[in-house]
């Protein structure tokens, strides 16, 4: 239980944004969106207290008698043969991430108070930001793989909803759907991995199962076979969340969201969630050389491709997105090589720098002008790529960079194949239904029937006028998944 004051403080850090989220979401749904001033003050208080608590926790872990401890919050549920305990794991790694999380969300929150002023959806933005803070803190503090997965999913869903923040435009909505699909597919790896940890280690607690408390020196008790399988599954999840090769191209698309959320998610925290997962489960990687080798390959490919693709971007946020992918790729390589402390340092440094860059992105042009004026000449970076790559090769590489290494086309082809299969099975299914009922039963029939049941005159006329259009338009309009790639 909450034996020490330190444990109480650490728990409060997690509960603060959770409480703020519940309060704001409840007010928005039941009553009305609170005033900007109220939201701003609440956010400031929550993250000021959260940051103070995190710093106290980190200090306590570093100077205190125990460098790592578990906080037992109680039994969440139990069935015979399966228990789910709520535990938080506090060690130097998670305490550092707690400080990073609360500090960066606090700073970005303060930035957003001004940046989002009088924006439609101001309340929604902060509701989602507090939910994200809850998820992120759960992710870094979770003492079991299941709890970590819970935080992971919350981070994913808030990320998707914030990409679609400007919901009246079609592009952000499509891009959010794309990010969701990649998250959903890759997160299955984490869920399966968590269940497998349960299966093989008979517990999902990070400490006994993955030897986490002596991070990064702990050792897992798992056999090499299961350890490799689980490590690869975790790697798949990390690749999705951290936008690594070959599923990296959702990240620049995610920049359609408001700038503060881009900074928060794709500069600072969400993008590093995959790195944190791999660092947290480092003892597993020690026992799985194959997974480490794969990590190095994925990290290298991501870093190289993102560096090249980033150079062909004309939008500063896109360029920063590719720079993030490249840096995270290098972190993957570091983890693959076993340099866990270096990777953790890299993570913290990169998060801080990238947040600053992304927050300054909207005024980047303005700053460039000031710099140029001060220097008296046009400030340009050196043409590193041009110097390194031979001339004939340059154009080909440029085309490749513009096409983002054809990765989108590849994924679109996959999505299209699945959708084609779904449509074919659906057609067969409808035919089978017709066989049973003896009457045609298709989208056209249902549209017509809807029109006939609509009782209000306006709805009925709108429907009957629209039915013909709709059926004609069906062929023209492909579902989002396919279309998003073509745009």
């Amino acid at each position, binding site marked *: 239980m909450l034996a020490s004051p330190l444990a109480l403080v650490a728990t409060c850090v997690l509960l603060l944004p959770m409480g703020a989220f519940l309060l704001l979401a409840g007010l928005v749904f039941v009553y009305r969106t609170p005033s900007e001033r109220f939201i701003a003050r609440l956010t400031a208080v929550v993250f000021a207290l959260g940051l103070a608590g995190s710093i106290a926790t980190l200090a306590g872990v570093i100077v205190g008698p125990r460098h790592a401890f578990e906080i037992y919050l109680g039994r969440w549920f139990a069935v015979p043969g399966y228990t789910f305990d709520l535990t938080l794991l506090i060690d130097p790694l998670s305490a550092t991430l707690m400080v990073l999380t609360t500090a960066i969300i606090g700073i970005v929150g303060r930035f957003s108070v001004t940046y989002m002023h009088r924006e439609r959806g101001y309340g929604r933005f902060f509701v989602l930001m507090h939910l994200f803070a809850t998820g992120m803190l759960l992710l870094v503090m979770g003492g079991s793989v299941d709890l970590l997965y819970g935080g992971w999913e919350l981070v994913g869903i808030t990320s998707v909803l914030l990409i679609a923040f400007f919901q009246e435009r079609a592009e952000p909505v499509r891009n959010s759907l794309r990010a969701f699909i990649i998250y959903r597919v890759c997160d299955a790896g984490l869920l399966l991995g968590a269940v497998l940890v349960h299966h093989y280690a008979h517990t999902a607690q990070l400490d006994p199962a993955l030897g986490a408390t002596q991070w990064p020196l702990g050792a897992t008790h798992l056999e090499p076979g299961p350890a490799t399988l689980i490590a690869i599954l975790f790697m798949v999840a990390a690749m999705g969340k951290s936008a690594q090769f070959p599923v990296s191209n959702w990240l620049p698309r995610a920049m359609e969201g408001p700038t503060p959320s881009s900074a928060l998610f794709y500069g600072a925290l969400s993008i590093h969630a995959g790195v944190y997962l791999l660092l947290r489960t480092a003892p597993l990687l020690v026992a799985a050389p194959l997974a480490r080798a794969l990590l190095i390959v994925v990290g290298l490919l991501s870093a190289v491709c993102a560096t090249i693709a980033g150079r062909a971007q004309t939008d500063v946020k896109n360029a920063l997105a590719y720079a993030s992918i490249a840096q995270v790729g290098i972190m993957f390589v570091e983890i693959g090589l076993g340099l866990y402390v270096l990777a953790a340092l890299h993570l913290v440094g990169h998060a801080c720098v990238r947040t600053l860059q992304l927050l300054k992105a909207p005024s980047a042009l303005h700053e460039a002008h000031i710099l140029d004026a001060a220097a008296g000449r046009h400030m340009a970076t050196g043409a590193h790529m041009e110097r390194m790559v031979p001339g004939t090769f340059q154009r080909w590489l440029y085309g490749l960079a513009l096409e983002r290494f054809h990765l989108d086309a590849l994924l679109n082809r996959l999505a299209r194949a699945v959708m084609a299969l779904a449509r074919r099975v659906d057609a067969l299914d409808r035919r089978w239904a017709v066989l049973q009922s003896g009457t045609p039963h298709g989208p056209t029939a249902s*549209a017509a029937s809807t029109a006939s049941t*609509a009782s209000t005159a306006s709805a009925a006329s709108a429907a009957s006028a629209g039915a013909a259009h709709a059926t004609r338009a069906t062929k023209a309009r492909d579902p989002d998944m396919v279309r998003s790639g073509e745009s």
Partner: protein
Amino acid sequence: MIALPFPLMALAIVIPAVYGLIIARMRDEVVARRHATIAATAVLALVAAVVIAFRARGAAIVVDAWTVSLPGVSHPLLGVDSLSAPLLPLVALIALATVIARPRRIAAPHTLGALLMTEALVIGLLTALHLGLLALFWIASAVPALIEARRRQALGAQGPLTRTWALFLLLGALPLVAGTVVLLIDGVRAGVSLHLADLVERGLHTHIEIAAGLLIGLAVLLRSAVVPVHSWLPMSFEHGPPGMVSLLWATQPSAYLLARVLMPIFPDAAEPFRVILAALGLFTAVYAALVGLAQTDLKRIVGLLATSYGGIVLIGLSSSHADGIAGGLMLWISAGVAITGLSLVVVAVEARTGTTDIRRLGGLAHTMPRAAMVFAVFGLAAVGLPGMLGFVGEDMLIHGVLESYPAVAALLLVAGVFNGITVMRAFARAFLGQAVPWGVKVPPGRDLRPRERVAVIVLAAILAVFGLMPGPLVSARSQAAVDLAAEPGAHP
């Protein structure tokens, strides 16, 4: 066994049945809705009293004592145990929420009456302790909805539904009736009644008895909407009377028959049957999830989600581990609530736009932000958002299934991925973006009404409260799961 001094369960069946008949004959919609609300609230209070009595006494079963005084009855006919206890308030709450939230356009008195009749029959099904009575309620529970569907059809709505639905109702009823009759005749010879307690004690041993069990199993399969006999379920969501369909689905009559009758009385021969069930459930879950990807109608999407989750619940129930069964029972509740919530939002959208076709919708969140929020919450809850009940159920179920059938767990994730994409895609296309030029727009000020809001808040609160604090519900469900997985004698 605890005997209740008052006939609470009988009242919970009779009140909505009689009141439903009266309401169906009313003329004024407003008055009818008021009476229906009173009736549904009364039922909720009654079943709450039963469940509180059950929880407080800590007995294995609570029964209506008066039934023993009927001529020729040796055991109580109505009772509640660990399996049915959480389902009763679930059904009562769903019925109440549906009555309150129903848009005026489809809240004709006869519809409300049929809804209450369905509620009565479903509560009868959940409390029956006699196989004959149970079979009667099982078959009858879909009849009001079917009659309602026929009435809609007469008004010019969709045609094929009633025929298909009636066909499968009949096909499902035949083997159940046959199996019950065989057991009855066999029992008369052996001097054993059709009370579930007697049946469980006796078990199924002779060839005739096992044949009867197989017939009941066939009824379960036909009514479970497993592929290839699934078409009626998405169809009923698409064209059937809203509310009644989700109430029936949330009760899962087929899964209930499986858990109440088949699993306890069929312990020896259950193993091969379990494998068949798990395989069919898995195929249904993945198939419906795949077909769901290609859909453009919100109602059909909800129907296919229901079909997919029906399959997943079957997999959980057919796993031989207590955590898998408990996960199935949890998911049964969470998916029931989430699908009902989704249906309520979809019905609200249809009442305002006249369509549920996502190709003609779009940008609804501008004028219906609360409806959008509710759709997202219930949709994500259905696909296992952490902090919601579905996450707990899915976690337990996948773990339990992994112990029994490892490959199934991996394929189950595929269904989960597809279902998630379907929900998010439907949300993005119907609620986000802009209305298409040929689409329909909802004018401002037509977001969810206060009564609709109350209904969805109650349902969402169930998912969130038990999602954050699942302990009590899990222990209740795991008791049922242990009863089901363990020796048959522990069950009534």
